[in-house]
């Protein structure tokens, strides 16, 4: 558990300095979007091997981002809207299921269920905000699937909630739109493609392991997408926009591949 807690910490006052120094070096993206190629270490090995500094870092980054966008298209092509992620049994569930974020658990947002509203905007007929009681009254489905983190580890978890595609129909969303953009209580954002949003296992999760979603796992709502990497699945969701504009996301803006499909 401590291993998972230590991941993706952001330097904040009051955080354990030792753990920070240990983790920051290898995992922390720098403040700047383009920092992942800056500093020489990235190309250092290549420069050393080729014996000359033939690769300009700016153009290398441009080329890498270009290939990453090409990989988005390849993955969209490979994505089969009817292909279900493998499901597991109760006995397979990873216990405890890891908490994972770029901040510590005690910094995770606390959402007040009494005043919570799920805001809808963009290309939808009915943009009435939803209270938590209304969301909990939606027909419930359950899944036990594998969560895969961009870091490589995986864990099997159990989520309950509403099928996102049913909800989109219910609010009269234009499902010919290209994206759904989510906003979260702590400022996290994420954009997903419509085919993934309409996948039968893509879920607005209100429960984890049949209990109301704890704060660690994204209370009051997580978008559970078993066909995507973990960072594409927003927690603490407060707003959704149906849009044709790719508004990016917290991690993909910093260099993680945008589509990140499994």
């Amino acid at each position, binding site marked *: 558990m401590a291993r998972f807690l230590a991941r993706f910490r952001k330097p904040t006052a009051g955080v354990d300095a030792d753990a920070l120094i240990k983790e920051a070096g*290898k995992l922390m993206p720098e403040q700047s979007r383009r920092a992942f190629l800056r500093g020489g270490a990235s190309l250092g090995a290549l420069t050393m091997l080729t014996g000359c500094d033939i690769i300009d870092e700016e153009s290398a980054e441009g080329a890498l981002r270009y290939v990453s966008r090409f990989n988005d298209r390849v993955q969209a092509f490979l994505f089969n809207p009817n292909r279900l992620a493998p499901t597991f049994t109760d006995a397979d569930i990873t216990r405890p299921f890891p908490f994972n974020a770029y901040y510590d658990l005690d910094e995770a947002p606390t959402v007040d269920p009494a005043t919570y509203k799920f805001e809808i905007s963009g290309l939808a007929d009915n943009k009435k905000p939803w209270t938590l009681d209304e969301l909990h009254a939606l027909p419930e489905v359950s899944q036990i699937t594998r969560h895969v983190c961009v870091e490589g580890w995986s864990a099997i978890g159990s989520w309950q909630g509403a099928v996102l595609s049913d909800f989109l129909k219910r609010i009269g969303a234009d499902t010919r739109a290209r994206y759904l953009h989510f906003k979260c209580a702590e400022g996290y954002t994420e954009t997903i493609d419509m085919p993934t949003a309409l996948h039968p296992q893509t879920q607005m999760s209100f429960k984890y392991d049949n209990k109301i979603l704890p704060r660690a796992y994204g209370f009051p709502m997580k978008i559970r997408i078993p066909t995507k990497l973990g960072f594409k699945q927003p927690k603490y969701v407060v707003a959704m926009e149906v849009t044709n504009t790719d508004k990016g996301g917290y991690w993909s803006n910093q260099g993680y591949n945008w589509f990140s*499909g499994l």
Partner: protein
Amino acid sequence: MTAQTMQAGYTATEKKIHPGWVRVCHWINALAILVMIGSGWQVYNASPLFSFTFPRAITIGEWLGGALLWHFAAMWVLVINGLVYVTLGLVSGRFRRKLFPVGPRAVIADIKAALTFKLSHDDLSHYNAVQKVLYIGIILVAVLIVVSGLSIWKPVQFQELTALFGGYDAARYVHFAAMAAIVAFLVVHISLALIVPKSLRAMITGR
């Protein structure tokens, strides 16, 4: 030099030890595999399978996000170049001619010769049995690292493939083991190229 020792299947006009396509594929592959290994080590560091991590100085990509960009860019170079190499190797008959036949008796004899420093490298156009086994082996490991990589990248779309490896987590270990095998091969391969410099020259100039 090589003319009188040429094997059946060669024509008199083929004086080169390595045709152009072999050399081009070899060096493109060399660059791609180094980027794949260097960035792969950085990806590994984000969630190590074992109790060690790779020193950052020998990794590529600065952080996980950068390493993944390198890894998923170089994979296209590695795979496309690999397909060209394997296709030409099969179609041209080079694989059949250079890597086969190879039997256990010849391998044991050549290992003995190598250990007693009697294994000759006079004729670079002819691979000894140990070389044959290593080159066949590394081609098979290359296939394994690509297939296990695919099963980690797409454990839903290619779930049958992932299941073949015993699931997502097991496929990560297979991918790592294949990397380790390639690194071990590279240590031997590069050491021998430096011990027998004319073999390095042959892979550059063809002769």
